[in-house]
């Protein structure tokens, strides 16, 4: 009986350890490649008619457990008449296109799992250009 208890404890410890290896989504790190746009805690703001290319890296809340290159991030705008998010030349690169003025949301998935929803706004251009 004591031996069975020891085995059960080892298994439980292993399970806990394995679960702890999984990154815990804590947000996205976004680096601009070109264009004008603005990410903040309130979400993305981009200008109608313009494009913003970014590199997106998921950030883990779990200490010492970061996302890897093979962790696949996908971004999809809820309303493509306002904003389109297109994949680019690498799996971590995306281009935001300000299609029309309005507000929408960007659904974030990692490895097929929904992890976040970001607010997004496409604003009209002011004056004769920006």
């Amino acid at each position, binding site marked *: 009986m004591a031996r069975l208890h020891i085995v059960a404890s080892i298994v439980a410890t292993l399970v806990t350890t394995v679960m702890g290896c999984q990154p815990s989504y804590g947000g996205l790190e976004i680096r601009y490649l070109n264009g004008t746009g603005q990410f903040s805690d309130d979400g993305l703001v981009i200008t109608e008619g313009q*494009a913003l290319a970014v590199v997106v890296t998921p950030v883990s809340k779990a200490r010492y457990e970061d996302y890897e290159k093979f962790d696949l991030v996908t971004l999809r705008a809820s309303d493509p008449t306002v904003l389109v998010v297109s994949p680019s030349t690498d799996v971590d690169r995306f281009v935001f*296109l300000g299609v029309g003025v309005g507000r929408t949301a960007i659904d974030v998935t990692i490895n097929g799992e929904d992890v976040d929803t970001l607010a997004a706004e496409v604003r009209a251009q002011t004056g004769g250009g920006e």
Partner: protein
Amino acid sequence: MALLAAIGCSSSGSGPSAVGELGNGTFDYRCGSGTDPVCAFGFAEAFPDCLLEGGRFQIEYTLRDVDVLDDWDRDFLYVEPASPTYFGGLDTLTALRTGRAAFVAYADENVVDILHVDIVAHDAIRLRDDAGSPIGAEVTVALGETVNVRAYGESATCGMPGGGIPITSESSDGTIAVVGGFDSVQVTGVSEGTATVTVRMGALTQPLSIVVVPAGADTESAGTSSGDDPSGSDSGSDSGSDSGSDSGSGDSSGTADTSGTSEGSTTGMGD
């Protein structure tokens, strides 16, 4: 979806091309019509500094390095505007409004490159002869002969604009001079005298005095003169005697009629 682009074309990096903002290739400019100011000699001399509102043009894309496409379909490369608010049309695009807008080069569904351009309104009409020389306020035409006048949009805010804006033209007196042509103004002397041809491009008009002289008379000296000043375009409507059916409804007859009115190419949304 705009033009399919040929991968590996030799024109990359020279002529009417602009390097994309992601650095994967070049956006290549193609003339939209005979009124395109960057295409005065029938081909694009350079990538324009801006595009004229209402102007027509074509954009292609050439990859600098096909390896950037990885495993995607390399035969399916195309350019689209980021927003249909700013550009309309399919193969031939039309700049619909002023501002700053992006073209996007795709391979399949993946963005390969981006290019932002400014779109400005034209504030003048420049008239030139077939040799590219500016035309002054008056042109002399021999009886029975036809001269060709080219019209290009200009903007004080843009050094070298691109985009061919459709034009219309009309003669104040079809018994003296008649006009025709599609994307240029062909003026034919019908009888001796003086008439005014009004060239309309968008909201602007440019008057041109036509003097019809007897056949065989010297027309060289008065044909072109001091045309450096591109101003003189009138905003608003002119009061020519002809009806001037340039409502922008999109017909494209392009032929002169006896009343001396010529309807140019289509306006507005493009193809």
